[in-house]
């Protein structure tokens, strides 16, 4: 089961809504929790025990934290809790990666020792619910929230069915209360949730699944392609990833909305960003917020960074000190971000790529400001904004190319071949003219909606305020677009959700 599949949309969700509505209020929490575990079980089977185990452990750590009087003991409990949660994630997700690489190093050093690989199964969504569990423990430690005494409430927070596969990663303060409240279904929530789901399906099935064909054809046979076609494929993958991930999040947010739960947004027109730092404030927002709150800031106020700030100010001046402190706080964030996506060198490279880009931005800031001042450039001028957005697109597309490439070596080869002799033909990549037309029109519609949102001309209430015939014309238009232009049938594959694999 996955959020874009008929089993979820036409069976799981409607039946759940029905049971939820007819169940007495006091049983609704049980219905939602059962639905979460059933959803999890339908994908990962008995590995649902990991989620249940994590919930019980997190609950216990939260209460332990509150019971401790001394700060030292609190710190120990926090460290123990975080390390165990990360330990389980690390073991299941990265054991084989490190075993393989250590074995290779030992082999290169002449040692015959090999660390054997293990057959490890990864529970669905472990990377998402583990981060939520850590945020809960840290928030209790920082006294932002009290420890939750009710195990059911914490279980609902960690096992809320729409968030299991791809997030968004929420903090306890953001969603726990609304999920636990179990409000009765309301027509307003049902209709706005359904429209959001429809919008997500449009992005996923009409655009992303079509682009998948082109992307797969080039990335899986990259040796046969060169020049502009590699850049087009990298651009297509960036668009595919956005349409798919944001489309899935639309379905997730729409599903939660039907039950009266408002989940945090994960995207805010990322392609309108004027630099890489802004892009990461608009793309996968909840992951960025998590790293900021639970890695960047704790490292920023740690002893070594504070010591560096004092030492650097005396010895090297403001500029070097700020750059050094930023590097110390950003490095673990981007190493973590890369590794979070999976145990592959290309993901580590992806993280380090953004670390380098952001550091370059910080280092170049004084020079950039000086140039702008000297040349009297109006930073709000359209041409300047367009230039900045274009530059950011190139940074993003190159980053996503390495992210998608079949290994780091393939990524480097593709990057080099982009500047080589053009080879390959767009019409032999599994898509015909009609497909390209649908993709272009689809992207134009999504782009137009993005522009309207960016200019605050479109919000959730606006659709409701439209005249009935106009509103229904939009609904039918979306339904028909998904039904007629959706990429299914002969020649298309059911494409799994990319972020569910993380």
């Amino acid at each position, binding site marked *: 089961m996955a959020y874009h599949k008929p089993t979820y949309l036409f069976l799981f969700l409607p039946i759940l809504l029905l049971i939820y509505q007819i169940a007495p209020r006091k049983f609704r929490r049980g219905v939602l929790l059962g639905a979460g575990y059933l959803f999890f079980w339908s994908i990962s089977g008995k590995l649902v025990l990991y989620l249940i185990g994590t919930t019980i452990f997190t609950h216990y750590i939260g209460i332990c934290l509150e019971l401790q009087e001394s700060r030292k003991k609190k710190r120990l409990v926090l460290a123990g809790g975080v390390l165990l949660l990360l330990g389980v994630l690390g073991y299941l997700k990265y054991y084989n990666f490190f075993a393989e690489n250590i074995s290779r190093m030992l082999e290169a050093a002449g040692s015959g020792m090999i660390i054997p690989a293990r057959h490890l199964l990864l529970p669905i969504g472990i990377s998402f619910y583990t981060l939520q569990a850590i945020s809960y423990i840290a928030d209790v430690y*920082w*006294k*932002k929230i009290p420890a939750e005494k009710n195990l059911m409430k914490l279980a609902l927070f960690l096992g809320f069915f729409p968030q299991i596969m791809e997030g968004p990663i929420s903090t306890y303060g953001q969603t726990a209360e609304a999920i636990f409240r179990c409000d009765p279904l309301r027509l307003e929530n049902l209709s706005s949730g359904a429209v959001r789901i429809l919008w997500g399906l449009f992005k996923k099935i009409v655009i992303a699944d079509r682009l998948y064909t082109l992307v797969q054809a080039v990335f899986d046979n990259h040796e046969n392609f060169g020049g502009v076609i590699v850049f087009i494929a990298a651009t297509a993958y960036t668009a595919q990833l956005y349409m798919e991930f944001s489309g899935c999040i639309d379905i997730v947010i729409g599903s939660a909305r039907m039950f009266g739960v408002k989940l945090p947004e994960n995207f805010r027109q990322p392609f309108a960003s004027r630099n890489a730092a802004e892009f990461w404030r608009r793309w996968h927002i909840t992951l960025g917020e998590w790293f*900021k*709150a639970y890695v*960047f*800031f*704790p490292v*920023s*106020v740690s002893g070594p*960074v*504070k010591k560096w*700030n*004092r030492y650097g*100010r005396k010895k090297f001046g*403001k500029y070097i*000190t*700020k750059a050094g*402190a*930023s590097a110390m*706080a950003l490095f673990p964030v981007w190493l973590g971000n890369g590794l979070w996506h999976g145990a592959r060198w290309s993901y580590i490279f992806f993280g380090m790529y953004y670390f380098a880009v952001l550091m370059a931005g*910080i280092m170049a800031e004084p020079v950039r400001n000086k140039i702008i001042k000297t040349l009297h450039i109006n930073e709000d001028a359209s041409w300047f904004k367009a230039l900045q957005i274009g530059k950011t697109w190139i940074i993003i597309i190159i980053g996503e190319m390495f992210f998608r490439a079949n290994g780091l070596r393939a990524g480097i080869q593709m990057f080099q071949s982009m500047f080589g002799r053009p080879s390959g033909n767009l019409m032999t990549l599994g898509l015909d003219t009609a497909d390209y037309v649908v993709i272009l029109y689809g992207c134009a519609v999504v782009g137009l909606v993005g522009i309207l949102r960016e200019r605050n001309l479109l919000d959730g209430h606006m659709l409701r305020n439209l005249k009935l015939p106009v509103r229904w014309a939009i609904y039918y238009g979306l339904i028909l677009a998904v039904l007629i232009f959706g990429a299914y049938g002969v020649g298309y594959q059911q494409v799994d959700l990319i972020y569910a694999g993380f």
Partner: protein
Amino acid sequence: MNTKDTLLDILNDIDDSIDWKEQKGLVDERILDSFCVITLISDLEDAYGVEIEAAEMIPENFNSVDAIWDMITRLQEKL
């Protein structure tokens, strides 16, 4: 004992072209970015003898001179 003026001196040291007293959205409007906050933390700790923990790193505590000052006085009371 360092006063609120010391805080203004610290902020002016970051950028003296900003009228810090007038700003009410230092973090929200990105006048003060995360990287400036990192260096600001050490300066505040040295000047006021407080310890600023990660839990304090929220926009509400850094959005204006008054907000920063409120945080400092609150942390001083804890000492």
